[in-house]
């Protein structure tokens, strides 16, 4: 009880002194994991209520706080079963994207412009999927508030340079960070015309054995089209030692 009280005091004291950047740094490090594996359910819901589901296995490994590799293997719908997608994030230059087409038995690198393109036709962009990139933004703490029963930090992120704005398509992001777990609770995305057009919402998080946390169910809603996309992790396993060789182009080709 005493230790819990001391921890709370420490967290409280530390928290009151945090800057916007420090808060987001904590967000990036909220889940102390090196690798993850499991399944992903990606559900797309159109404004008229039509639903499209994709199921895939995934493996990801973190090499630096905000630099990782990820492979996804589609399981459903049946026509695309076996398609595999590899994303290699690069500190400098464009991220690398590779795709394995089981029908053609070939791997191709996909070169597409920017990071703001839609991830598998969802409301998440490839950039969103990669998580917060601290070097790309300047963060400013705008206040501390209570939102939907949770105490949050309100942090405003502005692009560090024009390239980031151009590539992501975001002129501003407003984050609401839960004070208790340092996960993004809500986020609002503004396009380059300054219009708020997307809203992120955390539905569920998972607490790892070491007490750190990871978002496992979250969704993005396009405020203009009312289209929604939800990502849900199923059967998540943490730090199982996903081998590096699984996250290579060669591994993709050998599938």
């Amino acid at each position, binding site marked *: 009880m005493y230790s819990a009280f001391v921890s709370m005091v420490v967290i409280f004291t530390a928290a009151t002194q945090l800057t916007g950047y420090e808060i987001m740094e904590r967000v990036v490090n909220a889940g102390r994991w090196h690798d993850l594996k499991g399944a992903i359910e990606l559900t797309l819901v159109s404004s008229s209520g039509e639903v499209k589901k994709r199921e895939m296995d995934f493996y990801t490994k973190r090499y630096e706080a905000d630099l990782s590799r990820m492979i996804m293997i589609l399981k459903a719908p049946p026509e695309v079963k076996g398609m595999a997608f590899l994303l290699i994030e690069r500190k400098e230059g464009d991220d690398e994207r590779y795709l394995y087409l089981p*029908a053609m*038995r070939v791997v191709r690198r*996909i070169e597409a412009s920017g990071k703001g393109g839609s*991830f598998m036709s969802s409301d998440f962009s490839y950039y969103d999927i990669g998580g917060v990139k601290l070097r790309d933004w300047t963060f400013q703490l705008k206040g501390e508030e209570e939102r939907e029963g949770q105490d949050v930090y309100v942090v405003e992120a502005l692009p560090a340079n024009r390239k980031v704005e151009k590539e992501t398509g975001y002129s501003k992001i407003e984050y609401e960070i839960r004070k208790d777990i340092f996960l993004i609770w809500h986020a609002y995305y503004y396009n380059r015309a300054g219009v708020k057009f997307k809203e992120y919402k955390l539905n569920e998080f998972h607490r790892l054995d070491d007490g750190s946390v990871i978002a496992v169910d979250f969704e993005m809603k396009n405020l203009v089209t009312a289209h929604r996309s939800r990502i849900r992790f199923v059967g998540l396993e943490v730090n199982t030692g996903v081998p590096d060789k699984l996250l290579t182009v060669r591994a993709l*080709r050998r599938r």
Partner: protein
Amino acid sequence: MQSGQYSGNLLQRFLLVFVNYPRLTAAVILGVTALFAFQLRLLHMEPDISEALPKWVPAKKAYDLMGKLFPSRDFMLVVIKSPDGVFSADFIDELDKLTKHIEELPQVYSAVSPANARVISSSEGVISIKPMVEVVPPVPDNMQEFRRVFNQEIPLKENLVSSDEMYAGIMVFLRKGVRPEEGAEAVLNTVEKEIHRKFWFGAAGRPVINYHLGKGMARDMGILTTVAVIIAFVILYLTFRTPRGIFLPFAVVAFTIVWTLGTMASIHHPISHSTNIMPILLFSIGLADSIHLLSRYFSALRTGKENGEAVRFSLKELNLPVIFTSFTTMGGFLALLTSGIRSLGELAVFTSLGVFYALIITLTLLPSALVLLGRPRRLQDASAGLGQNLHSFVWLAVSRWRKYTIALFVLFMMFLAWGYTRIHAEFNSLENFRKSSNVRQTMEVVNRIFAGSVSLSIMVSGSDGQMLEPDVVRRIYEFEKFLRSIPHVNEAFSYADLVALMNRVFTGKEEIPRQVEKVVDEATGKEVSIEGKELIAQYLELYEMSGRGEEVAASLDYRRANARIIAFLDTEAGSVLSGVRKKVLNYLEGHMQGLTFLLDGMSEVVLAVNDLVVRGQKVSLVASLSIIFILNLILFRSLRYGLLSIVPLIFALFVNFGLMGVLKIPVNLMTMVTTNIAIGVGVDYAIHYLFRLRTLRAWKLDDKSAVRETLEVVARPISMNALATGLGFSVMVFSTFVSVAIMGFLIALAMVTTCTGALLILPLINQKGGE
């Protein structure tokens, strides 16, 4: 007759209550007007022509269904002229910036221009899906290469660069749920802001037409009403030359318009392209009863009656004809409900309501105000004012010059009969705009040197996943080729093009994969057989993963059960569109077995409106004549008078359609309204004439004397009324829209012809035979 007199007396007693309590009556009317005026703030406009269609029309169903299934429904093309040609570095750079700004608008689903059009290529294991400006950066030395790559790699280029390479097109697809005119406004404002008059620009497509219709409607409402007021002022002055003779009719029509628009606002009903003309209609129609009532009032005063007595006398004399002419006008309008065109139905209902309001206000406020104002200080001389000697001239025409008059009529009718054979139906939204307007000029440019401004969407539907079957994709691909082979169809595209392009990237062949394909496994080097359906699904998945999922989504739904093919045509001519439609349907019926299909797009709306107009014109014409005949049968309780009352109308309709044929004016939505207005309003003259004639005959006057005396009493008010109403309608010739201008001309003409029918044809007939 007994019951008629009783009801007449009862009605008279009821109306005299208002005259007996003039202050209270005026206060109540003013109070109600204030309430309706307060509601006017809620009034809004709905210029979308597709809203004119009833929900059961296939084009409307398809329009609504496509809006549900696909993320984008409406398309517009922004056209920008480059002084140095499209393929100049600075221009492409400007175009790139502008396209990005347009893409960022919340109303826009996607925007494609020569700058950001995607180039799909493959080399050494890399598939590249990048915009033109990234594949060939727009710097002066690169522009030859830019042009080569664009012409070689970009599909749909016919709508991106004009055939003379002087204009660039930005194809803008609006998000579903966005009102077309609001989307167009946002896009046009952005273009205006970004290119700052550096380049000439214009836009085409249904959203743009709606936007300009909305703007024109607002302008028309302001300007035309003002002109109508000025004209009415002049006519009322020339007729009565007293302040009350001018301002009281004005108050009646102003209050009528406020009440009617206030009612629409209260029930959140928008003003459409049809109801837009309603204030002008009510203005002209609303004046009629006031003119009759005031004419009788002033003549009663001149006979020495005291003010209150003159008011009561006028009411007693005219309450029945005024009520009946209002009901016949309402009947004429309500017959438009049979046309099946929603917006015309709305015009019918609200104008009828307005006529009813005008009747209430005329019979309550006008007599009350006359009582409150007291006897005018001076009275206009009976011989002063316009048309005092008209009845003498008419009498000569129907008596001494009878044979010549009849001969003239016969000749005129023969000429019109020839014109009648040349009548045709055509709804052309392009020709609805004046030649000098930017929207018309742009659409003419687009139709001349781009793929075209008129879209035709074809939705092909099957079971879940069926649109991925190679056989189906191939049929759609072939169908697109067929579409392009039809004259006036200059471009067509769908997801099948993306499949063919992706196949080229992987196999070098721009074609649709077969049912079973053989490929070499990169890992083992062995040849393996694969399902074409899987290959197509994976091509599309790959394309979506490249980050341009919206291009697939715009043409293929989630369930892969519905596909949309969009074609562009360079004309709105109904005859051409129906020819194209016939060919398309024949092809689909012959080649799309096992699948269903629906047609949508601007061309379908045009055809559906034409179809409804042709059918609706006949039905509403017969319905309005029947309604009028029945109402007059009830009023006069005489078959002969009932039939006589529609004679001037048939004459007016003959003149109307005959002249339309002679002047090559096509029958369309607006001209269709003309006939009903002509019938509804024009019958008033016949009623006033016949009512008076019947009264005089009841006094046992012989035919000749009865006709002569009738003409003496009614010729002036009827002709003044026709002049006021006709001139009121004629202000529509100043409309932004050609069809409204033509409508104004035709209604004004109909007022003259129905008036002529009542004052010339009826006396000619009445003189010959007895009752």
